[in-house]
Structure formats: structure tokens, C-alpha cells
């Protein structure tokens, strides 16, 4: 029988150090692998973007491959639409360019509407479009955006360009579907009134969004205006009287 060598403090320390080193090495390898993966995904993106511009028609011809190509685009987040504007699109507005841009514009509006209530400035819209479009695609101007939106007119008034000061805002959620008005009324429940700055501060709304919602409520007769204070107050008589009847 062999006696086990007793373990000294030095051995325990050594073991701990070794374990710590293994751990370091392990996370180092994992980090390295992650960096490689990210690189591979970027490679994928670049290739896919190149193929969408170069081989669009060939890809469209083969249904099975088209489905697979779309699956890849979906996985790594590449936009398969990257038509160039060309002469005829520029002159007559024909071709896929503006239709594609239309799809991309709506997409940005939909993706951000949970935050901005469907109201986005044309500057922000363009910036987001450039980020989400294929890196190989053509540069887009404000004029391109307005032309693309004009092409959507056939789909009704749900999507409109508003002139605000000397710039434009795009509204993608029509009054029929917005919950902004309800939110304003809810917000007024405590004090029976709201002001524009309250909405901007508490709900983190843009000034334009707040005034549109308030103007609608006044127009519909749901809110009453009180200009006695330094800032215009919007009172909701229905809330006010409802609370009175509860109290008595």
C-alpha cells in the first residue's frame, strides 16, 4: 500500500493557479472563436450583397435556389433588393428601383413605429435606410425617398409625407390605427389635463408627435384648451366630470 503524499499549502496554491490559467485560456479560446464567427458572418454578408447586385436575374430564374438564397439573406440580415436606379428610373421613374426603395422605407417605419408612433423625420429615415440597405447599393437622396413614397399613393392615405417647417416627416400609422390619442387621455387621467411638454418629457415623444395627437383631440371635441397658464393646457372634461360623479 502506498501512502498518499500529504498535500501542502504550496500544492493547493499551485493547483489554484493552474485552474485559473486554464480558465483564462478557455475564455481566450472562446473569444477567439467568437471573433472568427463574426468574421465569417461578415464574409457571408459581403458575398450575398455582391450576388444580389450581380446575379439578380439568374437567381430569380431558379425557384429552388431563390428560396435558399432568401433563407441565407434572412439568416445574416442582408437585403436581397439592390436594383440600381439607372437612366430610365431617373428620367421616368420606371423600373424596380423606386418600388424596392418603397418596400425598404415602409420597413424602417414599421420597425421604428413602436418607438415613434409612426412618425419619423426624413433625415432619420434616410440614415436608417442607408444602414439597412446592402452596402453595394446605390446612394439615395431625399428626392429619391419622396419619389418612392409617391409611388405608394395607390395604397391609400395611410402613408403620408407631412411638411413640418422646412423639412419633411413621414407618417406611417394613420389616425384610424394609432393608439397615441388613447395614450394621451390615459396620461391625463391623474391631473385631468396635459401639456405638450408633459408628453414630450414623460412619454419621450417628439414635439411633432405630441402636437399632432393633441390637435386631433381638440378637433374631435375630446379636449378643451386652456391658455391661462404660460403653456397651453389641454383639459378633458369627460375625465373631470367622471371623477366628480365618483366623489359625490
Amino acid at each position, binding site marked *: 500500500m502506498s501512502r498518499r503524499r500529504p498535500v501542502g499549502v504550496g500544492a493547493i496554491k499551485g493547483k489554484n493557479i493552474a485552474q485559473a490559467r486554464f480558465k483564462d485560456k478557455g475564455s481566450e479560446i472562446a473569444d477567439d472563436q467568437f471573433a472568427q464567427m463574426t468574421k465569417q458572418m461578415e464574409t457571408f454578408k459581403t458575398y450575398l450583397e455582391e450576388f444580389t447586385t450581380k446575379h439578380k436575374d439568374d437567381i430569380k430564374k431558379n425557384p429552388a435556389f431563390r428560396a435558399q438564397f432568401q433563407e441565407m439573406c434572412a439568416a*445574416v440580415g442582408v437585403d436581397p433588393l439592390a436594383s440600381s436606379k439607372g437612366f430610365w428610373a431617373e428620367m421616368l421613374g420606371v423600373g424596380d428601383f423606386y418600388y424596392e426603395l418603397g418596400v425598404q422605407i415602409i420597413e424602417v417605419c414599421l420597425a421604428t413605429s413602436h418607438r415613434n408612433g409612426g412618425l419619423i423625420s426624413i433625415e432619420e429615415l434616410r440614415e436608417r435606410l442607408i444602414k439597412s440597405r446592402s452596402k453595394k447599393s446605390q446612394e439615395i437622396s431625399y428626392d429619391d425617398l419622396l419619389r418612392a413614397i409617391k409611388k405608394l399613393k395607390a395604397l391609400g392615405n395611410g402613408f403620408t409625407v407631412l411638411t413640418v417647417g422646412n423639412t419633411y416627416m413621414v407618417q406611417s400609422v394613420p389616425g384610424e390605427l394609432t*393608439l397615441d390619442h388613447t395614450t394621451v387621455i390615459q396620461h391625463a387621467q391623474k391631473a385631468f389635463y396635459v401639456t405638450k411638454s408633459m408628453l414630450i418629457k414623460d412619454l419621450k415623444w417628439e414635439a411633432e408627435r405630441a402636437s399632432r395627437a393633441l390637435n386631433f383631440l381638440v378637433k374631435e371635441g375630446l379636449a378643451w384648451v386652456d391658455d391661462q397658464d404660460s403653456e397651453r393646457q389641454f383639459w378633458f372634461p369627460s375625465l373631470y366630470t367622471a371623477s366628480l360623479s365618483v366623489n359625490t
Partner: protein
Amino acid sequence: MNRFQWGDTNLSLGEDSLTNQTGIALYDGESKTNFEGGVANITSHRLVWKEQYGRTTCLSLPLSLVQRLEEQASGFAKSAKIVVHLSSPVSGQQAGPASSSKYDYIRLSFRDGGQQEFLRYLVQALREKKWEKKYVPPAPPGAPPGAVAGRHRPGIVGIERSIQQKQQQTDTSIDQSFQDLKKLMEKAQEMVSLSKSIVTKIRDKQGEITEDETIKFKSYLLSMGIPNPVTKETHGTGDKYYRELAKELASVLEKPIKDCGGMMTMTDVYCRVNRARGMELISPEDLLNACETFEELRLPIKLRRFESGVMVLQSSTHSEEEVIKKTTEVVESKGSLTAEELAQNIGLSVILAKERLLLTERVGGVCRDDSEEGLRFYPNLLLTKT
């Protein structure tokens, strides 16, 4: 008969048993043998015959020797048979029941029937040729591939090297596949899986592949792909095209419309549909024309125009009677309601809530009280309390 070896029924590595059949007699070519009333077993590698009762004798024939099969139908006092034509015995074969034979075939006689099924499995085993494939044991989970094969324990450097090798392989396979369109088409499925696995791994580590909400949303929309979009090339022009398109729209949109409260603006629809179609864009005009045919085709969604000029698609289950009934119920349970209260109550826009109340009023479900405090609706006691 000399191709048979004495054997056992134990399966070797990678060998699967396919089927058993009782009541089998073996013929050496045309002549009967003593091997009667046994169980024949087909495995992926062999044909095994075993005595049914004594269970001592067991013969095995490698399927690699089988050249072709022939069926002999049953007749008067004759069982159905399968003729198995064999190639000449390999040298160095293990001992069998016969050292030589004048026939190059054996016959299996099916005294209990079942030859059809037996033949099917035999053909399958011959087609798969599993005996030719080298058996690869399934890798133990978690072990890095390539690292186990080495004679030495790999150590950290070994692990690092094997990871690096694998990454290089992936890099080159991506580069090669994307050399030109033809190559990519050949390797498409592989690349689809690869892209997905990379993204999944990145997601596991980082949560999302991108912070950009538009790109996330785009990925989501694209993943709803329509495999065979209706196009003018495939479905003609005019009404026929629009009707086919309408059917496609209904199948793609029914669920998303329900998910977002039974109503979706046409622009929203336009974006979703075109994203799902990938590169086969449709124009706003075509979309509108297709939507006009919904009612005629009795599809579960319908196009609706508001007075303001806003157009939406709405699920048809969202019928007027249903709306009226529900609105009446809500007003009754609350005592009285204004449009904005109803909007809060059912999570709808104020305009739509008002519209619902006015609709209900029109059929006598509620009554209005129009005062300076606003328009308030009460249950219609004039009709209900009589």
C-alpha cells in the same frame, strides 16, 4: 451452397437486422438440402439462415456475393421461391456446409409465405450496400472532432490547432462556394445551414446579431418566405393573375393580420408581402387589384376604405354583428362609455372606437348623450326595457 459460412446471428458493428421470415428451406441450385424449416434473417450485410427449433445450425451468406435476384411464383404443391445468383466464392473464406457446388445459385423456398416482403428488404439491403461503407462510430458528444483520433492526448495546443483547422476549412468552403453563381447553386443547402449555424452561435454568445432594429425586422420578414411566388410569367396576366395573387396574399397575411388586432394598413401589407416574395416584387397597383378580388373569392380577409382615404386589410371574422354585440356588452357592463373610454378598454384607436359606437347606435344597441362633456353612450333601455 459453398458460399455459405458457418456463422452466428450476432450483428457486427454498423450492421442492422432488417427482417425475419420463418419456414425457409434452402436449395443448392436445383437440389434440396437438409437445411429446411429455418428462420432466414436479412441484415444490412448478410443473409443468415438458422434452424428454427434446434437453433444449433446457423449459416451466413455475405450479401456482397449476391449478383442478382429472381422470383419463382408458387404453383401446385410448390412454394414460392427466390433465386439468389451468386458470384464465385472468395478465396480464404471461412468453412461452410459445402466445400464445392456445381451451381452458381441458391434458392430460398418460402413454405410459410412472406416472400414478397422478404424480397423487398433483400433488394433494399443490396441497394444500400452498407457492407461497403466503413463504420464510423458516432462521435462522443462534446469531444472536438479530429482531436480524438490522435494517439497522444491532444493538450491545449492540440485543441487550439484543431479549432483553427476547422475555422480555416469553413473559411475556404465559404470562399469556394461563392466563387460564382453555379458553385453557389450546387452548395446552396450547405451554405444555408452554415449561415444559420454561424448566426445561432453568435446569438448564443451575444444575444442578437445586430442592434439595428430595421435589420432585425428585415430578417424576420424575409424568413416568412413564399416558396413559389405568383408571377405574371407563371400565372398569366389580367384577372387570373390577380385572383391567384389574392389567394397567395390571403394565405400569407391571415395570421399576421390577426396578430396585430385584425387590421393592417395597405402599406404595411405591401412591405410584408414583398419581403416574403424576396426578389419578385409586385407593384402597389397590382397589390390593390388583387385585394379587390378578395370578396369575390370568399377569402378570409377583406379590403376596407375609410372615409379619410386610409385603406386597410381586415380579417372577415371581424364581422359587423360581432362588433355590435361586443360593443353593446361593454357599454352595458360599464354603465356608459365615451369613445376614448372604449378605446382604452379594448385597446383600439379613438377613431375606430367612435366608429364602433356610432355603428352600434345605428342599429339601436346604444343611445347617445351629447353634452358639453363630450359624446357619451348608454345602453339602449328604450329597446331593451319594455
